[in-house]
């Protein structure tokens, strides 16, 4: 109905789409910031007492509370938190007494490096594999190949990244001594963390690509392309693939977001000097401002990935700009 109206009026659907998507991004960001802020206040009991331990003298606890501003009314704290964020102030670490923003600035590049490399690996491996498998198993051909592909991808996807990491370390680093066990020094040390992070998502994405491409191949417009007697190459690359990409991206967006989160575990196995190894230590030491800051950065990263996915989707498939939520 809306589509018909827009068409009749000849109005571009881009502007409303951009507005809608921007609003959603900002609302999600606000929810994220608020959740991060509330995190400290939702902790049962006194976070400072939790963090300093039961043995801490009451006056130390009280002065720490005052220093963190925890005695002010909630709204005042919230306002201070928001204005702080705009100045790039994420608070001060309870354990090291350094600004959280410095810590994040220090650790973020390593995490981004890991996530980007893993992302590239996922795309470069999963899309071609999925396409080839779809073409080979189209119309119920090569049942054996289909079964082998599906089951191996299920198995790979079911292995959590930290276990894959452990397996890779024990096989390739400890037994065969091919790569370093940990750290982020030379490109050689990147191989295992990236593999550990990317293999699972790559398996899932390859499966999605195959299933989506197969379902696109069953569409009427693919039959039209064949009825035009286009060479198979054009049928697949020009007509089927772009349509599979749109569906794949929607599902793959979630996957990429989970890749961002997956860095936490992988970094811990490989002692990768990123945010992931920092946040776990901070949770154990109850260094709440640091946890807060890192959660915020991860969350924003995820929101950004989702935003980029939606924009790419809109560029590839103009219809997605008019799809109503």
């Amino acid at each position: 109905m809306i589509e018909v109206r827009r068409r009749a009026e000849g109005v571009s659907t881009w502007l409303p789409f951009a507005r809608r998507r921007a609003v959603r991004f900002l609302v999600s960001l606000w929810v994220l910031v608020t959740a991060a802020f509330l995190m400290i206040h939702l902790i049962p009991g006194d976070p400072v007492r939790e963090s300093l331990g039961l043995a801490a003298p009451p006056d130390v606890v009280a002065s720490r509370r005052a220093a963190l501003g925890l005695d002010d009314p909630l709204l005042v704290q919230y306002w201070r938190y928001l204005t702080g964020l705009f100045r790039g102030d994420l608070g001060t670490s309870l354990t090291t007494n350094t600004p959280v923003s410095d810590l994040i600035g220090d650790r973020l590049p390593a995490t981004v490096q890991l996530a980007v490399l893993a992302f590239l690996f996922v795309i470069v491996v999963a899309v071609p594999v999925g396409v080839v498998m779809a073409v080979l198993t189209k119309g119920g051909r090569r049942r054996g190949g289909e079964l082998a592909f599906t089951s191996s991808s299920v198995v790979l996807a079911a292995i959590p990244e930290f276990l894959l990491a452990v397996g890779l370390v024990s096989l390739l680093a400890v037994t065969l001594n091919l790569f370093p066990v940990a750290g982020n020094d030379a490109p050689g040390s990147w191989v295992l963390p990236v593999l550990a992070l990317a293999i699972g998502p790559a398996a899932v994405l390859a499966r999605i690509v195959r299933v989506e491409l197969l379902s696109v191949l069953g569409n009427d417009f693919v039959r039209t392309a064949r009825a035009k007697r286009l060479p198979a190459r054009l049928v697949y690359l020009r007509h089927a693939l772009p349509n599979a990409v749109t569906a794949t991206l929607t599902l793959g967006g979630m996957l990429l977001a989970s890749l961002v989160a997956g860095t936490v575990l992988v970094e811990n196995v490989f002692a990768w000097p990123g945010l992931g190894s920092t946040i776990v230590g901070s949770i154990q030491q109850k260094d709440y401002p640091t946890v807060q800051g890192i959660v915020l950065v991860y969350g924003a990263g995820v929101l950004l990935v989702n935003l980029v996915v939606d924009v790419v989707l809109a560029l590839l498939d103009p219809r997605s700009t008019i799809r109503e939520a």
Partner: protein
Amino acid sequence: MRAALRSPVGLASAVLLAVLVLLAVFAPLLWGDRAAAIDTDSLQQGPSADHLLGTDQLGRDIFHRVLVATRLTIGLALLATLIGVTTGLVLGSVPSVLPRWAARVVTSAVNIAVAFPGLLLALFFAVIFGTGTIGAVLAIAFAIAPSFARLTQTLTAAVSGRDFIKAARVCGVGRFRLLVRHILPNIAEPLVINATLAAGSALTAFAGLSFLGIGVQAPSYDWGRLLGEGLQRIYISPAPALGPAIAVVLAGLAFNLFGEAAASAAGGRQQVRGRAVARHDSTVEEPDEGLLTVRNLHVSFPGGITPVRGVSFTVHNGEMIGVVGESGSGKSLTALAVSRLVEHPGTVTADRLDFDGKPLRTTSDRDLGTKLAMVFQDPMTSFNPTRRIGSQLAEVSEVHQGLSRKEAVRKAVDRLRAVRIPEPERRVKQYPHEFSGGMRQRAMIAMGLMGEPQLVIADEPTTALDVTVQREVLKLLARIRAERTAAVLLISHDITVVAQTCDRVLVMYAGRIVEELPTDELFTAARHPYTTALLAAVPDLDTDREAPLAVIPGRPPEPGEIARGCPFAPRCPLAEDRCREEEPELTEMSDGHRVACWKSEKELTLAAAGGAR
């Protein structure tokens, strides 16, 4: 779910799950003491016959600790799943019984939460609930909940859109009963399957948290904790880490594979189309009589299903032929077969299948792409939604006629103008969704005109269109036929559409042609009991409003259920024993009029006169 057990994967994973449950129940009873026994003589040993996976820093046997930890690991994973799934189910289904504003709040909260990966949510909640077993259970439960709520919402929305929910509402069924009696039973299966998958990921997530040291705390231990302990000395001995790692992977796989098997058993196999293989074109040289010559055409699918069973007809240059039949009659497959578009695993065989004097099988793509035009039923889905109309038309000439992109687009503009699409210069740059239904179908016809079509095959070209638009499209086909002397093969379920436009009609039933006759004789001289009944059963503007419509008892057979004898016999008022035993051939009754019926012309004429009333 039961069907899942029939696949080897489903069976294997079910066995694995059963083993896990048995271990969870009995392992602590059988080996609890051994797993807790501290042996200061054998600290941190590697694998040996006594200690399959070695010992830990207190000399405890790791293999038995892994077995005993099954209970805590599985138990916590299931507990977290249970809480998470229940929370998700409530969050996902309450919007349908809440007032609108409240439903909106819940829905958007879920939508925002679902954008964040589970692990991140779990970490967030782990901070709030504190490190430890209960904290981790709640963290994972709440991390599962949003995606489950979303799934419930999606499924509920899909079911709610169906008419039986509307019907129940009209009948006065209350919201709660609607949810419990109609919605939940219809979404239960995917929910259970996804809960199984969720249990698998809860298990691995829990292991992850314990591994990070924010899950199960000493002295309790689950696989994740054992793994974390083992990893610290992985350089010395990998076995203590690999043991629990393998346990986690196996258990996670068991849940995942069982879920997958159940899902594919529930979803069934995807429908398939096939590639055309004209297997034994006969080499008999008949005189070249038509543009399209079809003799004894069969289309079959694996499982002994043959929806087209021996169809023969000829289309001459410039002729307009109608093929009429109900769903399942094989008319559309016939159209696909004669245009070489049947895909694997479908197989096409024919004694003769010639187009333009050459066997269709060996006709080049270039010839088919320019001489044979196709128009499909649904113009909305028949265009690629991601490409501009102009480029979709132009590529025909680029590929087959060697035109440059620019020339080809110019030709596309010209052809769009030929089918009377206003402002073709602007329209070529638009996407299919910017066209109306009727215009899209014209554009589809224009696409066929990019070549020099000698035959246009139109499969239900007007079914998806409004009546007034229908007529325009039919007129356009008639015009192309007149101006370009192209032959048209028009396939339709609507006998009146065919009657208005075609020279000859082929009536199909259960994969065969049962009658072929000139259109002028359709309403006066149709003889096959199916044709006459069909004509009497469909009201038109001349139907007598006082008399009841003719009724054909029963329903047309599905391609898989065609039995011996004439397939129309079970519904035929004239059927006798012979009809139920042998299938009649299509035989010439008079010039240009063929009927497949055992009854004599006289009997049929009499019956037709009686039936028409």
